[in-house]
């Protein structure tokens, strides 16, 4: 049943999200809504100002002043213009002051920190995201990658860090961006107000594959979130078919294990994304490919063609090994 749901409903969800699943114009959290309101305030104000200036300019151009005017009349026109310009400057000051105040209050509205917030630690890597769910009891702390699940309506506090260069975490639908800077701690706080799947993308140039550094944010009901969390804490599912058993052997015996962790197996590398539940994630390769067996095999077979310059090497595997390991990995839900 759930498999059916996943297979049929998910693509629909994705399609529905197409219009704006990475858009600042489609706010789905309190912070983004605040910014959305501010955006329209600024846009409308600025639009009016621009239109007025253009109209006056047009008037100045289309006006046909008398060819020769007496000196005193010209003087009067000059003085009148002076007053108009002075008034316009004063109006500018007022508008600017108003907008400054509006953005000041918007900042205050957003940066409220909640004591009961869900704490998630995010680390940016070249070119993927590590996600660590914090918990008071350490054996409920778990690590996943490139996918962030958040419970609907609960304040969340994202602690942002960088593992190598500067990255910037940005889910336009949920909040404004915040940089991840080596040697510094940054925090992003918001409360998701609508369930759905959103896309985050690195917004600070971070090298070769800056373009392919995305993260899925899944906002779901607290119940769904709780179930998901329980799944994530568990170790990887045991392989069932012979092919999957062979796949695990490949994972443990080949270069995979030197970089990736699959909890419950001998693979405990920490250089690449944690693969314990990779099959349950929507995408692989930081948002580049869907998690299907074919895409998984394609990615393992030739990561450097799909995402040139990324740190996953092209590991020589036989066709059988490739089949087996991709079959095993997509089953790790």
């Amino acid at each position, binding site marked *: 049943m759930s498999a059916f749901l996943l297979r049929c409903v998910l693509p629909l969800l994705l399609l529905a999200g197409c219009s704006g699943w990475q858009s600042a114009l489609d706010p789905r959290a309190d912070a983004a809504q605040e910014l959305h309101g501010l955006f329209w305030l600024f846009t409308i104000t600025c639009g009016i100002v621009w239109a007025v200036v253009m109209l006056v300019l047009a008037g100045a151009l289309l006006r046909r002043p008398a060819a020769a005017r007496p000196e005193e009349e010209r003087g009067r026109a000059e003085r009148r213009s002076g007053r108009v310009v002075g008034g316009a400057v004063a109006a500018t000051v007022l508008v600017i002051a108003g907008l400054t105040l509006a953005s000041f209050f918007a900042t205050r509205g957003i940066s409220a920190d909640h004591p009961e917030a869900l704490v998630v630690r995010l680390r940016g890597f070249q070119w993927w995201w590590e996600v660590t769910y914090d918990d008071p*009891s*350490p*054996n409920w*702390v*778990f*690590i996943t990658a490139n996918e962030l699940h958040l419970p609907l309506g609960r304040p969340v506090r994202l602690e942002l*860090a*960088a*593992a190598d260069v500067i990255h910037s975490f940005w889910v336009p639908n949920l909040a404004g961006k915040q940089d991840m800077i*080596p*040697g510094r701690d940054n925090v992003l706080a918001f409360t998701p107000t609508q369930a759905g799947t959103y896309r985050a993308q690195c917004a600070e140039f971070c090298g070769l594959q800056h373009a392919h550094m995305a993260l899925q944010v899944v906002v779901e009901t607290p119940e769904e979130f709780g179930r998901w969390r329980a799944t994530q*804490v568990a*170790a990887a599912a045991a392989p069932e078919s012979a092919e999957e058993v062979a796949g695990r052997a490949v994972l443990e015996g080949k270069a995979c*294990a*030197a*970089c990736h*962790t699959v*909890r*419950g197996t*001998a693979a*405990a*590398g*920490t*250089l690449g994304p944690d693969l314990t539940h990779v099959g349950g994630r929507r995408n692989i390769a930081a948002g580049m490919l869907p998690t299907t067996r074919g895409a998984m095999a394609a990615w393992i077979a030739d990561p450097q063609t799909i995402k040139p310059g990324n740190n996953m090497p092209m590991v020589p595997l036989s066709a059988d090994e490739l089949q087996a390991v991709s079959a095993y990995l997509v089953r790790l839900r």
Partner: protein
Amino acid sequence: MRLAALPAVVGHSITPVAAAVVDRELGQPWGFRVTGWAVAALLAMALPGNVGAAEVPPAEKELTPASVGQLRLAFTFRTHHPGPATQAPLADGKTLFLLTPFPHTLYALDLATPDATVRWRYTPEADGTARGRSCCGEGQGGMSLEGGRLYVNTLDGRTLALDAANGAPAWEVRTADPSSGESLASAPLPAGGKLLLGNAGDRFGVRGWIAALDAGTGRRLWRLHSTGEDAEVGIGAGFRPLYPGDDRADRGVASWPPSAWQQGGGGVSGPILWDAGSGLVFHGTGHPAPLVPDQRQGDNRWTSGLFARELETGRARWFDPLNSHDLYGLGATASSLLLDRDWRGAPRRLLVHPDANGHVYVLDRGTGEILSAEPFVPVNATAGVDLATGALRRDESKAVRRGRMTRDICPASPGAVTGASAFLPETGLLYIPSRRLCMDMEARNANYIRGTGFTGANLRLRPADGEGQGALVGWDLEAGRPAWTVPERFPLSGGVLATGGLVVYGTLDGVLKALDARSGAVLWQFQAASGILSRPVAFRGPDGHAQLAVLAGSGDGPEAEIDRRDASAEDGMGNVLRDLPRSPDPGVTLYMFRLP
């Protein structure tokens, strides 16, 4: 190889060569020390045995502050084995046993003969892999003598029993697997027909354990881990948790992130103690792996603390988490002492444990209760111990976080004390060979690849404020403060011998010193040809005269292939040992002294 046996003419012919070696390897400037080295090297290589035996006036045969000045070098025994000699020789009156660094050779020297002929020797099979598992003067196996049998732990994970009389092997078992980074760093402990031993390998993410073998056959009786579920740790009905929280089930799993305990370290690499009276064994557990704390959130039970276990079953009685969630890779494996004496007016059965974290812990060894914990070296990472919870009061500014550099942490990994301390009841002083070092620590990502380092930290050590990188601390146990300290230029790595009002120890730059146990005054010293990492031993020779033996050999010769331009070399020691002159004699040498 045994110079005592060489004719003098050979000695003369060696002299210029030796001088040339000294010239070339020590570099400038030529200070007092270098001269000392040179003399020692010449002595080691060229002197015939029984130096000056005829001239010394007759004197008392006991080693005392009064007689120590008469100590004379009896003979030297050069093994040519390179490497750090960490295991003290053993003597049983007639025979002196010595175990060379890995790949080991075991020598039995006949003390009855004037030039100490080799009675037998034994070279166990060696798995070269283990060589890359030991660093920086860490222990390399060990031996103990019990009931005419010699029990040996080899670095590459073998435990064997030999007949002490003729070196005939009785049994040999494989107890540790060097391919995973596991090794045996210390001597096995014979206790009540059992042989207790523990593994080492915290820096490789090896899960620590302590095991008991049948001393007669080598069969394994029990083995219990330092991490994991209660059944595997030996926690059950008999366990008396000292602090709230430790009464919960499976703390060895629950106080770790999922699966992290499997590579969690906590090796039992230090000495194990047995209290025959209570039937309890005591041992420390090593630091949790990896060093980077972010990858092992939680308390990380049962690493970096002290265990009391029942000898028969290994079941845990109590556990003192000395360095809960050990931030600095200290571990609690430094050697302890069991003392039965008055404590603050009442007789107590004490366990005294100078810990790597720089505090001397005094425990009631029946209950594990901490009676006192006072610092014996400069400490800034913590502000004392809360006796109610046993926890250290940490300084948040010295916290270690991944991707950050934390500066100036005192004491430095691997701790304020690594060698064995000694106690003299008559002075009431504990003699602690301390390391006065601080460090800058940078935590970084640790990647687990079986058989390779699993640390995730860059260390850069430097001397603590004050005089010297090490000090011998004469610690007043009752008062909980030092009675005196003798500063040392280099960190003290070997153990201390306390006997007859004397404290004897060796230094990294090869000086063997004897101090007055009451005042700390240096009464006698001797310059060896190599650094000393092992504990000196004193015993009465076959002739009834007191003898003093020490094994020199710091493993610091050219074959060490250490380039100290790298401050992180040797786990950060590279930065403090830049001034340490290289030993002119890279081989392990036994120096035997005796009172005339």
